[in-house]
Structure formats: C-alpha cells, structure tokens
C-alpha cells in the first residue's frame, strides 16, 4: 500500500490551532478566530491536494497510509499511531474540513459578541482535528481516540454557555450517553483482539474471511451500539435534542453535518464485518428504520426550530443507517445521503442560526412568520436546503434518499417491503414537518412582538449559507452521474452486482416518493399556511402530539429505567458503606473495647479473689495436665 508523509498535517494543523488558542489564552483574543479559520481552511487545502494526488493514482493504489510511531505495543497487542486515507475517508475529510471551514467563517460573525469567542474557535479546531483522526485512523483503537475526542469537543461546545445549568446538564447528558456507545466500541475492540488477534482495519478485514460468524456478529452488534450512541440512533438518541443547547454553528457542524454521522462511517468502514454477520446487519436496518420514523414523528411536534431540525437530523441519519444496513447495495448510497445531508442540513442550521440572530435568539417557531420579507437570503438558502431534504428533484436529497428507498424496497421479501414502505412513509412525514418549519418561519403571517426587528445577517454569515445551498443543489446530481460515487467507493465497500430482478423499478420508486412528498407538503400547507397558528403551543392536543412533543417519552423512559434506579442504588451503597462495611470495622473496635472493660471487672481489688483465681488456676492446671496425659 502506498505510504505518505503528509497525512498527519490534515490533523496536525487544526490540533495545533486549538493548542495555541487554549495555551495563549486571552492574549490571542484578537487574532485567535482568524488563525483557527485559516488552519481549518489550510487543512481543507491539504485535503484537496490529497484528493488530486489520489485521482492521479490508479484505482488500486488510491488508498495511502502513514505510520507515525508505534503507539501501544504490549505482547501481541500492537497498535501503531497510523493513518489511512482511502476513497471513503477522503469524502469525510473534505466534508469535515470544507463544511468546517465554512462554519468557522460563519462563526466569526455569529460569535463576534461573545467574550469567549477565542475559546469557541479553539474547540472548533479541536473538533476538526478529532473528527479527522476518527476518519483517518487506520485501526479501531485510533478511531476510538477520535471517537471520544469528538465526544469531548461536542461536550465542550454544547456546554459552551454552561453558566446556564440546563446547558451544562445537556452537555453532560450528551457525554454520558456517548460513553455508553463508546463502551460498545471498546467491547468490539476487545472481542476483535481476543478472537481475531488484531484491531487494525486491514487486519480485521483480512481475518474476517476466516473468522466464525459468532465472533463477527458480536463485533458487529457492539459496533452498532457504538454507532447508535454517536449518531443518536434508537435507543441512544435522547441526547441530540438537548445538544441544541450549543451555539447554532456547533449544531450545524457537529450535530448535523459531521460528528453524528460518524456512526454511519463506522458501519460502512466495517462493511466486511457486517457483510459476514447477517444478524448484526439486520439489527442495523431495524435500528435505522425505527430511528428514521422516530425522528420524523418527533420532528412534527417540535416548535423550537433547532429541535425540529435536530429531530430531522436524527431521522435522516436513520435513513443513512438503514442504507448502510442494506449491505454492499446500500453503503454507497448511505455515504451519498450523508454527504448531501451534510450540505443541506448544515445549511439549514446556519439558516436557523441566522434567523435567531435576526430575532434576537428567539427559537420558538410560533413566534416567527413571514420572515421571507426580512431575510431574503436566509429564506433562499434555507429554502434550497428544504427542497433538498424533502427530496424534490433535482435537488441533492432527491438522489440520495430515493436511492436508499429504492434499495430498501429491493432488499427482497417482506423485509424489503417493510423497510421500503417505512422509508417512504418517513419521506412523507419529512416533507410534512420540514414544510411546517418552512411555513411557520418564513411564509405564514408574522407572530413576533413589536420589539423584534428581524434583519438579514451580515455577509460573513450568509456567504457560507449560500455556498452550502449551492452544495445542496448540485451534489446529488454530481454524485450520481455515471454512478460516480458508487464506483469511487467500490474498492472500499465492495462491488455490488446490479441484481436483475428488482421489486420496483427506480422510476416507480421515484414516483411513489414524489407522491409521498406532495401529500406531506399539502397537509402541512393546509394546516399552517392556510390557517392561523397560535403564538403558544395549544395544550388541548391529541395524546399523540403530546408524547411527540415529549420526544416520545424518551427522557421519561431513561429516567424511570436508568436514572432513578441508579440514584437509589447510589444512595443505598453510600449508606451501606457507612453503616455496613465501615460499621463492621468499627464494630470490631467496639467489641475489643467491650471485652476489655468486661474482663477488667475480674480485677476486683480484693486480694482474696486474686488468691481464689490462683487456686482455681492451679486446680485447672492440674486437671488439664491430667486430662492431657491420661
């Protein structure tokens, strides 16, 4: 395999940036954000350069590696600090650095009033570095480092305004739930090492040919657990909504475009395992399907624009996971949707941020309305993203999502029909709630107070939105020309033979999908555009709406099943340690003391009793010896 010496710069540059900014402290307030942006951009540059290099090489030599040093080396457990750049990771590298850079730029203006902007940029750079490590690591353990690194960055950024207790709690929640997923990843690594004797991608792939189904299934399931944690998939989805506590650029970059898609990357990267472990693969599609419905349903009930978008992110990632679960047929499409989603969802989040910026941080969509007039650019870019996500041709979402739906239908048998129809239904709901967002925010009549003065955001903010909008228009088209992306990824995720017998022809699927979209849009327009909307969410709503607003009771569930018992257990143990464990120890002491004062009483002070003691002693002694000797 071709080795390179320049991969490390991809990571080193932003890492360096964050280090500088954190160590220099306030001294770097003046120029910190600029440095960070520049470094992120230059990392993007390196990415482009690597792409050009890669394109220059023949297909089989496109993947390149770089070994930095031997990281952990104990017995047969040898892990190098090594990087791997192949067709799959380059996509991510460009997405991360590209979108990342745009969001840096956006943030310069968005955070300009925050006294800690420098620290914000330091964390952004830290995130970029960690995310790059995640996608560039050449072994599961290296990936793990990036994996938790992004978790840390996300924790820091969600809690960036942690003086608000709620935000602090949100960040903690995110970290802890991610840790649950990370636990899965460590299990996967342990099993891999114990059974296959290696944890590097190449090693595991090579061993996976001979390994037993059981082992691979175990690894696969554990990887899935990890993915659900990081990508907010069912059942570890609960943290994503609260994660919106972070500044909007963070939501755009981390909780829409990149980090939350890491799970998808992990599954696609481990395709060789899932291909060999059908059970695990089945679980993947099930998780994907459930989550895409879950997110979609939650999305319909949210009035907080960011939470609505978050729910939609969850749902969209559900699509990706579903795709990834469909095996070689789906990997490429999952990645494609991931990339397109990266563009349009990031764009929409930035749009949301721009709206909040104009509405001095109001997030309740019921207090928006008719913003079209006041912030046209935001409206335009957001709108393009909207069209992309609901899957209107020829926008990006159409190609990627359609492909997934189609593959789902063609997965074969009942499974195929179920998955396909779920995906289709999901598309309809997506159309509904996204239209709802669109309408409530931009087109319906205005519902904000008079003291609000909506205005368009400055250039630094709308420029990135515009670029992302362009992306969300064009990418789908580009990726699908002559199966560009599919062929590009084939060396990594494996060729997929075009199966001749298909349940539904692409045309049919597209037609159905469009139909679903139209229905969804129609309902939404009728419900929100053509009828008035209360400024405060009505309470006399259907039971369904109520629990949808409560994220389908996910928090109540976690609280009842994990938190409360956990707290009780903790309290019990604390008591027990004090009373029982330590009590036993103290008991011994008290016992000794008691025995002491009891025996003291034998010392009556009367000489005669002492004499008696001696006499008895003598008799006992004689008797004793007698007994022993006879």
């Amino acid at each position, binding site marked *: 395999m071709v080795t390179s010496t320049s991969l490390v710069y991809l990571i080193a540059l932003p890492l360096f940036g964050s280090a500088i900014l954190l160590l220099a402290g306030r001294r770097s307030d003046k120029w910190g954000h600029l440095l960070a942006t520049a470094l992120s951009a230059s990392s993007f540059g390196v990415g482009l350069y690597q792409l050009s290099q890669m394109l220059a090489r023949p297909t089989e030599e496109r993947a390149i590696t770089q070994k930095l040093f031997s*990281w952990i080396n*104990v*017995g047969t*457990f040898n892990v190098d600090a090594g990087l791997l750049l192949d067709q799959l990771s380059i996509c991510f590298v460009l997405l991360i650095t590209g979108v990342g850079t745009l969001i840096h730029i956006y943030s310069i203006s968005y955070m300009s009033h925050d006294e800690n902007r420098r620290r914000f940029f330091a964390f952004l750079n830290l995130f970029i570095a960690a995310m790059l490590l995640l996608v560039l690591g050449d072994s599961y353990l290296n990936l793990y*480092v990036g*994996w*938790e690194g992004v978790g840390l960055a996300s924790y820091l950024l969600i809690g960036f305004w942690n003086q608000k207790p709620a935000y602090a709690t949100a960040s903690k929640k995110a970290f802890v739930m991610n840790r649950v997923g*990370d636990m899965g990843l460590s299990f996967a690594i342990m099993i891999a090492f*114990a059974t296959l004797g290696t944890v590097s991608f190449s090693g595991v792939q090579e*061993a996976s040919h001979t390994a037993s189904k059981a082992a691979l299934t175990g690894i696969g399931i554990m990887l899935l657990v990890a993915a659900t944690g990081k990508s907010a998939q069912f059942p570890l989805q609960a943290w994503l909504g609260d994660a919106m506590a972070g500044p909007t650029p963070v939501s755009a970059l981390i909780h829409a475009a990149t980090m939350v898609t890491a799970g998808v990357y992990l599954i696609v990267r481990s395709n060789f395992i899932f291909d060999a472990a059908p059970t695990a693969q089945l679980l993947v599609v099930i998780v994907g399907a459930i989550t895409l419905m879950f997110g979609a349903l939650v999305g319909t009930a949210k009035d907080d624009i960011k939470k609505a978008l978050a729910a939609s992110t969850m749902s969209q990632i559900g699509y990706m996971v579903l795709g990834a679960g469909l095996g070689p047929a789906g990997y490429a499409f999952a990645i494609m949707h991931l990339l397109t989603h990266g563009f349009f969802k990031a764009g929409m989040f930035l749009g949301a941020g721009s709206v909040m910026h104009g509405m001095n941080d109001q997030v309740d969509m019921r207090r928006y309305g008719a913003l079209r007039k006041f912030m046209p650019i935001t409206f335009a870019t957001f709108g393009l993203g909207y069209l992309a996500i609901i899957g209107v041709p020829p926008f990006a979402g159409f190609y990627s999502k359609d492909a997934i739906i189609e593959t789902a239908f063609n997965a074969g048998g009942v499974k195929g029909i179920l998955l396909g129809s779920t995906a289709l239904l999901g598309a309809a709901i997506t159309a509904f709630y996204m239209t709802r967002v669109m309408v409530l925010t931009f087109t319906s009549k205005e519902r904000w107070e008079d003291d609000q003065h909506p205005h368009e955001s400055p250039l630094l903010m709308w420029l990135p939105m515009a670029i992302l909008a362009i992306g969300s228009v064009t990418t789908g088209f580009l990726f699908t020309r002559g199966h560009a992306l599919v062929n590009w990824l084939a060396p990594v995720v494996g060729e997929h033979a075009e199966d001749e017998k298909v349940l539904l022809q692409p045309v049919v699927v597209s037609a159905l999908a469009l139909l679903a979209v139209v229905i969804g849009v129609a309902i939404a327009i009728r419900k929100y555009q053509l009828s008035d909307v209360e400024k405060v969410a009505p309470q006399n709503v259907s039971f369904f709406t109520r629990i949808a607003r409560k994220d389908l009771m996910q928090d109540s569930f976690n609280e009842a099943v994990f938190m409360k018992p956990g707290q009780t257990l903790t309290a019990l143990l604390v008591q027990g340690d004090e009373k029982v464990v330590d009590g036993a120890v103290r008991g011994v002491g008290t016992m000794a003391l008691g025995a002491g004062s009891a025996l003291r009483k034998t010392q009556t002070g009367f000489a005669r009793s002492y004499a008696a003691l001696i006499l008895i002693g003598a008799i006992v002694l004689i008797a004793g010896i007698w007994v022993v000797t006879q």
Partner: protein
Amino acid sequence: MNALTTMMALPLIGSLLIAIIPSEQVLRIKQATFITTLLVAISGVLTWIKFDSANTALQFVESAKWIPSFGINYAVGVDGLAIVLILMSVLLAPIVVLAGWNESEGGRWSPKVFYILILVLETMMIGVFAATDLFLFYVFFEAMLIPVYFLIGGFGSGERAAAAVKFLLYSLFGGLLMLASIIGLYVISGANGGHTFDITRLSELHTYMSSTTQNLLFLGFFIAFAIKAPVWPLHTWLPDAAAAATPGTSVLLLGVLDKVGTFGMIRFCLALFPDASKTFTPLILVLSVISIIYGAFLAIGARDIKRLIAYTSISHFGFITMGIFAMTSQGMSGATLYMFNHGFSTAALFLVAGWMISRRGSSTIADFGGLQRVTPIMAWSFFIAGMSSLALPGLSSFVSEFLVLVGTYTRYPVAAVIATFGIVLAALYILIPVQKALHGPTTPGNENLSDLNLREKIAIAPVVAIIVALGFYPSPLLNVINPASAHVLEVQGFTDPVPSESAGK
C-alpha cells in the same frame, strides 16, 4: 555509591539539614526541602535513563549484611516495574512540595516537622520499591506508616486524629498478618537451605510448601496489600484519611503508598506463591470488579470533593488488581502503567482540589459553582485532571485502562465486560462534580476567588504535560515495563491466550 542507595540517602541527609535550620526560617526550610526533592527527582530520572530495559534481571543491585544470623540483608535492586514506580514517586515529591507550599502552616507542629516527615517518607517510598530483601521491604512497609500517620494527624483537617488512627490500625493489622506469613516463609526457608529473605531465593520455596500452607501465607500477604491498595471491602480507611490529610499528603498516600499494595501483589504474592495466586485469582477478580463498580458509585454519591477522589481511586485500584491477576502481558503491563498514570492523574485532581478548597475554605462540592468563570485556569486544570481520571483517549490513563481491559478480556471476558461499565460511571463521577463546581452560575462566596498563581501553575504544568505526553506516546514507559511484566508471567508459567479465530489458525 549505588544509585538507589544514593536516592534513598539524599532525602535523609536533607531532613538532617532541615533539622538544624531554626524552625522560624520557614522559607529556608521549604526551599531546602524543594531542592532536596528536586535532586532526588533528577537522580531518579538519570537512573531511569541508565536502566537497561532489555535486561529482565534486577539492576542497580546492592547488598550488605544486616542481621546475618537471620539471613537478613540490606539488599536493593530494581526491575522494570520497580524503577517505574520509583520514578513516579520521586517525580511526585517535588511537585507535592511546590504545590502544597503553604499547607504545612496551621498544623499542630511547625512546618519544619512537616518537611522532615515528608523527606523521611520519601526515603521509605524509594526503599519499599527498591528492596529485594523481604525483611527490608517489610521494615519500610511498616515504618512508612509512622510519618504518614503524623502527617495526617498533625497537619490534616477535620477528623484528622481519628482518620490517622484508622489508617494506622488498618495498616498495622494488615502488616501483622503479613508478618505472620513472613515468619512462615522464614521458617520454611530455614528448613530448605538456610534462612534467607532474598526474594529470588524465596521465590523458589513454593515447591516445598503444601498447598494449604501456600494459600495461608499468600492470604497473609494479600490481605496486607489489599488493605493498602485498597480493595473492597478493606477500603473504608482511605476516604477518611484522604479527606483528613493535606492535599500533598493525600497525593503521596493515594499516589505512592497505595501503590505499594499493588506492587507488592506482583512482587510477592505472584512471585512467591504462584499456585496460591492461581487458586485465588477468581476471588480477587470478583473483588476487583466490585471495587471498580462500587468505588465508582460511591464517588458518584460523594458530597465531599476529597472523598470523591478517594472513591475514584478505589475504582481505579480495582482496575489495577484486575489487570495484575488477569495474568496476561497486556493486563500486567497495563496495570503497572496504570499505577504510574494513576499517580499523576490523582495528583492533579488532589492538588487542584486542594487549591480550590484552600481558597473557598470548604471541601463540599455544593459550595463551589461557576468556577470556570471566576478562576478559569484552576477550573480547566481540574477539568483536564478529571478527563484523565475518566481515561479519555489521548490522555495517559486511557492507554493503561484499555490495556487492562483488553488483557483481562482475553482470559476473563466476564470480568472485563462488567468492569467496562465502569467507564460510563467514570463519566458520571467526573462530570457531576465538574458541572457542580465549575459550571452553572457563580455561587455566592466564590465571586472573588483568585486564580492559580505562578507557583501553582509551575507545579501543575509538569503533571498535565506528563498526562498528555504519555497519552500519545507511552512507549518510553511501556518499553521498560514490558520485559519485566513478561518476565513475571513467564515465571508464573503463563502465556497470553492465542486469538481464538486468528487468520493464522
């Protein structure tokens, strides 16, 4: 003069010098102590550099007759495990002195006493790891208690006297059980080729013991070490002691003294009683797993920041013992590395916590809040320390913790799996205090706390540096540890389990 002996002599000399400085000149005394510990640290680093990691035999060996008629020698020497722990101890000492620059005031006695005790303790810390004569080891093992006892009881806070007594009685009890075992060994050695305490010769004795004898003697040692380490359920002295002691003392207590327990398990329990070790491994693994989870839960429930750190240590020591008795190269090396890393991450936690407490005048977590805004540097130092305590990848403790888990999994999957839940609990027991103390609105009383001063920054910087550096590049230590731990396992007759499905087979 032998490198180890020199290292042990230096602090004693220093303490004598300090003894002649009039106790009014506190600054002079502090400087003298700091310089002494610094010198020791330097010589320690030099020794570590000179150490030939390829060679599994004991190095820097020195032996002199002490009590010939009992076959007792003053014998010192180090292998890869010992040198790493000595390195840790001598590196921590100057940091502790510098960090706790003012903690000697307000004690029962003059600062002079404090620093003399600290230096005497340092000598014994080095000696206990360097001793290759069981008797010598025991002497250090027990004599160590006295300075610590006075450090806690004389300079601590709160229930210091009670805590000190609890600590001493617990340890003495363990020590006496160990003494019984030592006498047993001594007698057995006398019956088989002459009285001796030389550990290499003692390690050949197990062939002469009945399994019952071996088990009993093993227990004598193990209980003593389990109290030191501390392993559930023999841990209850630790939170009290740690809560009462000054931060610096706590660092030495949890960072170094408790390591004597885990070190002793490798050096004596495994080496002297291989069969018994095998017999008891299941039990010990159970205890370790319990310690991991139990300690974590108690840390979550802790209200006092020092107790919290103590409980986290109980959890961490669970990992160490588990790694040791997993009997795999990853577990063994991981455990040893863990001892080193735990020394520093706990040091960081305790020192920063100590600064927070001394500024706020309270060690209750609830009394803090919003420190990140008032005292950013202190807050971030605490955060980094916490991250290393929850074994964040990229920080040193991750490497060791993961090695322990992987190493355990290959032989005892169940234990490893349960233990892994500890990493989720770790996230909780670190982030909860982080949120309560550093985040949220600034609670009244904290508005004008002062941030770290230069001295404190200088003290904490190397700790953080080591934590980060070893996270990315642990090889310098692993290269020293690996041959030694491999040697231990080889003596034990253990080989790593082969991957059950490796492409090779």
